């Protein structure tokens, strides 16, 4: 600080400015160092054949070309997008549950607390549980066998389609409570008069709910869907780790799980792992942009 600044007292506004900047500075420093700078490094390393130790020769876009030409990468993308199915299922079921809870039938608070419990339990536990439940001699097969639903027991986690299905089921089971509570929040903001009016108009219970409530829940829906989609690309690691380890082969491996494999399990070319990371980031940003455009279109329409 110069002597001049000391002599004339700073204005209130300047004071505020300085305080504000210093207040946000720690956050910015932390984020720059640990979130922003590593992305730059990852992007830089993705253009090399870095082996994690001391070899790091520039190879240009070779990693990207190999990834995009190979079959495995597209399998990973397919897996991520198939797992996105968990979002509409969650939204639909979450809405139903929210509506039921919204009726405030006796004990609803208790049920609401209960339905959130899967979110309190670690994905490691949930993944392991579901793996056990769906194993070859596990409860699901036993029950299905006794009910006569399946002639021979299914190897749920051995077949691509059923394995992905089990994962989707697991994701929905785990997040349904959260979805319901979020929707309940939105529902409580809708005045009863709206529903009354619909009832008077002769609309049945379900019609009332879906045709009346859904448009009014647009913002909440947008929020929930956005978060769930991003989560499907970034938060599935512990589930995949405990359910299938990405197997069999690469059948249930997602992009973010592959980054883990390529860097911490078989780290021959970490440049390639970084390339996958960069591509993942691009996909997430692209999806977010698409979502924002879609929701602004919907908002324009509903206004």
């Amino acid at each position, binding site marked *: 600080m110069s002597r001049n600044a000391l002599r004339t007292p*700073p204005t209130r506004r300047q004071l505020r400015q300085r305080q504000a900047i210093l207040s946000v500075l720690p956050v910015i420093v932390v984020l720059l160092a640990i979130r922003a700078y590593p992305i730059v490094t990852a992007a830089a390393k993705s253009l090399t054949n870095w082996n*994690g*130790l001391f070899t790091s020769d520039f190879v240009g876009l070779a990693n990207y070309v190999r990834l995009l030409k190979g079959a495995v990468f597209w399998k990973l993308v397919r897996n991520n997008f198939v797992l996105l199915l968990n979002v509409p299922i969650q939204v639909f079921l979450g809405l139903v549950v929210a509506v039921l809870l919204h009726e405030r039938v006796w004990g609803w608070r208790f049920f609401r607390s209960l339905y959130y419990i899967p979110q309190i339990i670690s994905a490691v536990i949930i993944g392991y549980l579901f793996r056990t439940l769906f194993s070859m001699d596990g409860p699901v097969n036993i029950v299905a066998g006794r009910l006569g639903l399946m002639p021979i027991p299914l190897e749920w986690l*051995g077949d691509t389609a059923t394995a992905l299905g089990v994962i989707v089921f697991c994701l929905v089971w785990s997040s349904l409570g959260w979805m319901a509570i979020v929707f309940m929040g939105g529902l409580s903001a809708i005045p009863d008069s709206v529903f009354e009016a619909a009832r008077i108009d002769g609309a049945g219970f379900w019609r009332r709910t879906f045709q009346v409530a859904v448009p009014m829940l647009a913002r909440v829906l947008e929020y929930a869907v956005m978060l769930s989609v991003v989560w499907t690309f970034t938060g599935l690691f512990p589930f995949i780790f405990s359910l299938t380890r990405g197997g069999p*082969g*690469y059948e249930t491996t997602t992009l973010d799980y592959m980054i883990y494999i390529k*860097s911490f399990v078989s780290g*021959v070319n970490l440049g390639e792992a970084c390339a996958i990371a960069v591509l993942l980031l691009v996909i997430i940003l692209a999806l977010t942009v698409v979502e924002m455009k879609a929701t602004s279109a919907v908002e324009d329409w509903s206004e």
Partner: protein
Amino acid sequence: MRKSLKVFVLLALVIGLLLAVTGCAKKEPKKLTVWVPARDAYIGPDEQKKAQEEWYISQAFRRFEKANPGVTVELVAQSDAAASHQLFKAAAVAGNAPDVGVLWSGQYIFGIKDAIRPIDDLVPKADLEGLVGWETVREDFKPDGKILGYGAYAVTLCFMFYNKDLVQKAGLDFEANPPRTMAEFDAALEKIKKTGVLPMVFDESFPWFNLQVAVYWWYQLSGPDRIIKDCLGEEKFSEDKGLLAMLDYYHALWKKGYVNRDAATSTDYWAKFLQGKAAMTAGISTTLTEALAALGDKNVGVIAPPDMDPNSPYATGRVVGGTGGAVVVSKNSKNPELAVKLISFLCSKPESLELLKHQTFVPIRKDITPAEMGYAPGSVQEKVFTYKDNYIYFVDNILTPGVVDEYYKLVPLVLVGKMTPLDFAKAMDAKAAELKK
């Protein structure tokens, strides 16, 4: 404002100081950190449920500390042995790799040799002459290559374990008449299946059976040189008839119902075998102890895999095995001489004999006899011991890094028919081509 600025600066300094202090925790001068896999090495299957301090290896370290006052040895058990190579590498970058690491020999340590300190200058001559396994730890398998570590604590041998009761019920006697050809083997499996018992149980989510038994057939048909050339891209996996034949048979085992249907994802194969729900499985010498405990001393037998080519120039009548492990010293170790001293101590005769009380294995010391190991004549342990001069070195330790990882990931798909052997071989070729320098 000046006051709050001061507070800020102070806070920043404090946090910075805390970080610095905890971040730069200095190691005591004479401390050795040792990484050991949580099983299949120095820590035996029966020790899992015991407290860490009661493990053989902890007590061995205490004995070493006693003999070398002023030294402390810290044990770190690695739950994922396959990943520990990467971790070792990553730690080396950080400069804090452990002094001693128990890893896998052959290509596994060649791939991370930048992180390892060669110990040619520190190994006592007595060890060079009295222990086996040196060829698996010399750089690139060259006889004069740099010594990257000790061939780890034991010669591991892989077999097929069988439940004597269940096999006898099928009218077979594997001791008097072990199946030596593929036809005999198929016939035996069929007989067992007819009695309503599951002939073999696997967990190929990590392809143990393939690596412990099936690769023997590949080796027998193609030979080690061909295998290495495939990995280096000089020859093609997809033209390697031995590999394709082995994979065809591997898949046939499953297709004919000789193997549990969920072999590609199952994780309780060992429990099933121990409960007597399957007649056979693959295993290694160290797990024999647990099998004997669960099924009874008289009820467990071992047989070597049958020969796919009885006239093979490469190997006949053998098993897969060798010093699959390697005990290495990291480049950033501050006490390499002490580290080597510790390893040598662990390989000494008294320690080897002590370890034998906890696990069944073939020692790497040339001077221990079965009698000294307490193996009764005619016992299954003694039979295991007879294979010690009769093994082929682990094929997956010959496969190059990157290629071997792809092998692990994809071979279970071949077992259950989700990938044809040819497609698998092509995928391996692609990987080899990618890594070709």
